[in-house]
């Protein structure tokens, strides 16, 4: 757990020093909270932040006890292998149904692939229990959704602070952290606004701030500009890549302008990698 990461969000010269210091303290606290994660070897630069090895996934092929043997299953991923290092922005491209979202869900530990391994900071996610995966995800993965998914009755600040509730962070520190993050995404004057009072682009920036609340090492974004016009989408991408510096960022999209911000694009078709453009 390096200090390098503690400083990651504090690059802006606009913030006063005391805030920088308090954010450092919050980060340190979060680090301490997270350090018990089983087997996570984050901070080891020689290790890829995310590594998929020969990952295959079939929907409808596992789990359900009463599933009839003749039921059809759909192969979403076929032998997918690639890795993402900290600081990389990797785009996932491909038509609908090509497996982009399935890869994001597998990386976030939201699903366990039928075959292959998914390593997150050196930990094999597929070997963990549901609870362990949830804990790993909570501590190391930030998720940005296409449709923002903000609670409409909570202010922007309260929405951003939500992930910190689970960590048992006191209210004053949650608020401070959320305000800092909203300032980072350019919404310092919108902290008490409700989602209904914000534009689509502002909502997505709130969602990005929420994804950063627990200072994750990996950010997965599923069509983050899908609901936005081109100019707003560009702004949001700028924010995402800016705050994503030093983190591993995976962006799934079939929009060329979105994928243009990626350092590298992995192209998928029918669940298989057809191109890994470096």
């Amino acid at each position, binding site marked *: 757990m390096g200090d390098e990461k503690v400083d990651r969000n504090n690059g802006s010269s606009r913030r006063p020093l005391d805030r920088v210091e308090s954010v450092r303290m919050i980060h340190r606290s979060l680090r301490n909270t997270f350090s018990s994660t089983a087997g996570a070897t984050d901070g080891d630069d020689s290790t890829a932040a995310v590594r998929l090895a020969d990952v295959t996934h079939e929907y409808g092929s596992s789990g359900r006890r009463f599933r009839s043997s003749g039921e059809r299953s759909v192969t979403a991923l076929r032998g997918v292998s690639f890795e993402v290092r900290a600081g990389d922005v990797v785009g996932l491209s491909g038509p609908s149904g090509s497996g982009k*979202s399935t890869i994001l*869900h597998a990386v*976030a530990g*939201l*699903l366990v692939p039928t075959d292959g391994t998914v390593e997150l900071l050196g930990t094999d996610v597929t070997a963990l229990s549901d609870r362990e995966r*949830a804990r790993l*995800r*909570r*501590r190391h993965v*930030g*998720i940005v*959704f*296409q*449709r923002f*998914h*903000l*609670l*409409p*009755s*909570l202010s922007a600040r*309260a929405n951003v602070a*939500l*992930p910190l*509730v*689970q*960590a*048992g*962070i*006191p*209210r004053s520190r*949650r608020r401070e952290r959320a305000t800092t993050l909203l300032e980072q995404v350019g919404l310092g004057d919108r902290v008490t606004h*409700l989602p209904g009072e914000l534009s689509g682009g502002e909502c997505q920036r709130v969602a990005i701030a*929420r*994804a950063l609340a*627990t200072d994750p090492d990996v950010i997965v974004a*599923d069509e983050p500009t899908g609901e936005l016009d081109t100019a707003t989408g560009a702004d949001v991408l700028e924010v995402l890549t800016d705050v994503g510096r030093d983190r591993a960022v995976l962006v799934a999209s079939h929009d060329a302008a979105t994928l243009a911000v990626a350092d590298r694009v992995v192209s998928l078709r029918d669940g298989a990698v057809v191109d890994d453009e470096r």
Partner: protein
Amino acid sequence: MSVRGAVARVSAVVGLALAQLRRSPGRTVLTTLAVALAVLSVTLLASLGVGVVEMGEEGLDRANRDIWITNDPIDPSSSGTENPIVGAHEISADLTARDDVRTASPIAMHDVYVGTDPSELERVPAVGVQQTHDAFDFEAGHGFEPEGDPYPREPTDEPTREEIVIDPRLADDLGVSVGETIYVGTSRETARYEFTVVGTSSYYSTYLGSPAVTVPLADLQAVAGTSGTDRATFITADVAEGADRDAVRDDLAAEYSQYDVRTSDDQLESMFRERTLVLASGVTLVGLAVVGGVVLTINLFALVAYQQRDELAALRAVGLSRRVLAGTIGVQGLLIGLVGGVVGVAATPPIAAALNRFATSVVGFERLLQTPLEVYVAGFALALCVGTVVAVVTGWRASRYASIEHLEA
């Protein structure tokens, strides 16, 4: 997680629930009212029940009689005013002659017409007793005493004492006072008997629910034309000192098998049994109010959970536990239950007081609704139950939505 962390998490869940309630004032007010109404229906009906039971017990206590002999009237709706007991004086004399009975006396009831002018009469209930007693608490004048031995008697066609105790309100209506004369009869045509007002008291009015008059039993029988058969509604008896009430009741029941013989406790029970349908209706109404309140509240908050299913699933994905997410919805239901309970309990005293005023002005019963501490405890306990049920059900619904499967790609 440390205790401080857990406390921070719980307070955050409550804070989130409060924030959501604050942002939806219409829904919050509606559900609070639903729970408050359910609580009110329970507290008010319980107050009425307590009041009625206490009034019945008080009445029987004030009558201070151990044994009641009566008979189910042919027409139950007449509630005993058919005077089903025949030969009341003789039975009373026989009872008084027993070693295990100290004294026995008959009571008859009839509707009569009274007035200062035979052409302007009011119909009121009349109670025929052998003598008045201290509990009459006369506002003016006095009662009447038995003359000599009250039991051996010859039937008379005409009233002999011609004394009457009337309700003070009736006295005001008629414009009469003690010492003046009014006409009494069982029909407008036969209201020719002149009775002297000897006192004013509301003693029997309290039980009968309207201004009543009290006259000597033999006079009432004469006016009603039941002297020949010597009819009465009840015969009440006091057991001798040292005698067992239940044993005396059993003896009398065997001897007078054509009548119902009850102790005062049995009598109170039988009064309620006669009103089973009314009680059942009341309980059903309360049940419906409670179920209605619970269903409305659960539905509204389950709907909130459904509307936010995508958000709940997304928050689950970003790491919030199912318990925390269910808590934010469930705590809303619990808070509504508690606030609704407090509102319902707080509204009980003024509404009960208003209903009491209404009951006093319409039927003459004072303090018909009584609100001991137990009534409030019952109301608040209901609110807690409603809140808990709503919290559990809506929390469970929310936790089902807070699932990765509900997350849209």
